[in-house]
């Protein structure tokens, strides 16, 4: 009797669980209009850079030719937006599985004064081993940002503590093709699962 009751409870739970998963799948296929609006065909940017990677090697967009790159600008003292995007990128890389070999995520620092090569390496590595952190001189970073039409700037929140400044920066995610040309641009706020889907589609289309 007790078994029967337990079994019934179990069955009900299982049904609820399957229903819940099904609903999640449905939701995943239904992008919100906001999300649709946030997935853009890339704006005509040049997307060139000459920076130092987190292993101390000089790199340019040609270094990664033959692979897609997934690029965004941020800084390691960033509490909210950057860790959110980096977590999403780690999720995307995991979800892409084998196809992630064709994608190099690049995190370009807009705060090279604090983001040294070694800090960057430790920082991005803890999100995902595939993510590469790029930094450089103030001029290197400014040139890269300009080439992506990315705005950024230093913001001192507390005048009594100018060292603890924050950086404002574009939170767009750029998907560049194997030829280094822009393919897609994602505004902040697109769900990570939607990003996976969209990037998968790009990778399959060639």
């Amino acid at each position, binding site marked *: 009797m007790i*078994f029967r009751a*337990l*079994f019934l*409870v*179990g*069955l009900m*739970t*299982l049904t*609820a*669980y399957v229903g*819940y998963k099904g609903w999640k799948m449905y939701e995943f296929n239904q992008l919100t209009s906001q999300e649709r609006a946030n997935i853009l065909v890339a704006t005509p940017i040049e997307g060139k850079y000459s920076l130092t990677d987190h292993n101390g090697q000089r790199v340019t967009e040609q270094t990664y030719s033959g692979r897609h790159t997934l690029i965004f600008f941020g800084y*390691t*003292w*960033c*509490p*909210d*937006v950057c*860790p*959110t995007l980096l*977590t999403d990128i780690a*999720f995307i890389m995991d979800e892409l599985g084998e196809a992630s070999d064709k994608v190099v995520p690049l995190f370009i620092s807009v705060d090279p004064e604090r983001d040294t090569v070694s*800090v960057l390496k*430790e*920082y*991005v*590595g*803890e*999100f995902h081993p595939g993510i590469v952190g790029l930094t450089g001189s103030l001029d290197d970073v400014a040139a890269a940002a300009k080439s992506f039409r990315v*705005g*950024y*700037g230093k*913001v001192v*929140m*507390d005048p009594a503590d100018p060292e*603890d400044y*924050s950086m*404002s*920066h*574009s*939170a*767009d995610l750029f998907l560049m093709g194997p030829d280094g040309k822009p393919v897609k641009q994602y505004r*902040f*706020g697109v769900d990570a699962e939607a990003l996976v889907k969209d990037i998968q589609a790009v990778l399959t289309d060639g």
Partner: protein
Amino acid sequence: MKKFFMLTVVSLTLVLATAGTVFATEYKVGELTISDVWSRASPSVAKAGAVYMTITNNGAMMDMISGIKTSMAGKAMVHESKMVDGVMKMEHAMHVMIKPGEALTMEPGGFHVMLMKLTGELTDGTSFPLTIEFKNAGSVELTVNVKKK
């Protein structure tokens, strides 16, 4: 019968797991309810962090966050990440109101409790205390769960 039993065990485990995520801890202070309190796990080199939560005002009076303290940070205050001309900016939100019958949702890319001068590491699966004080409702100690997402 044994098969049914196994199925039951598996299902009950699922119930408990689901219940754990659905009925997460809620805090009540005065007419306010606070739920979904979490902080994103960050690399050990991270210098700053963010805490998110939802504060619902069930009362008839406006309330306001008047102070935040935590042993995890030298400084903690409410910030808002805002998109201005395509650039994400953080602003110090000085007077954060929780209107009667409404909820203030702090989530990634918006309002957050900014943790500056971290005193410890935001390691996945750990938790730390945070005291939030409201002008009317008074103060309450929350347990912040650190997780990846």
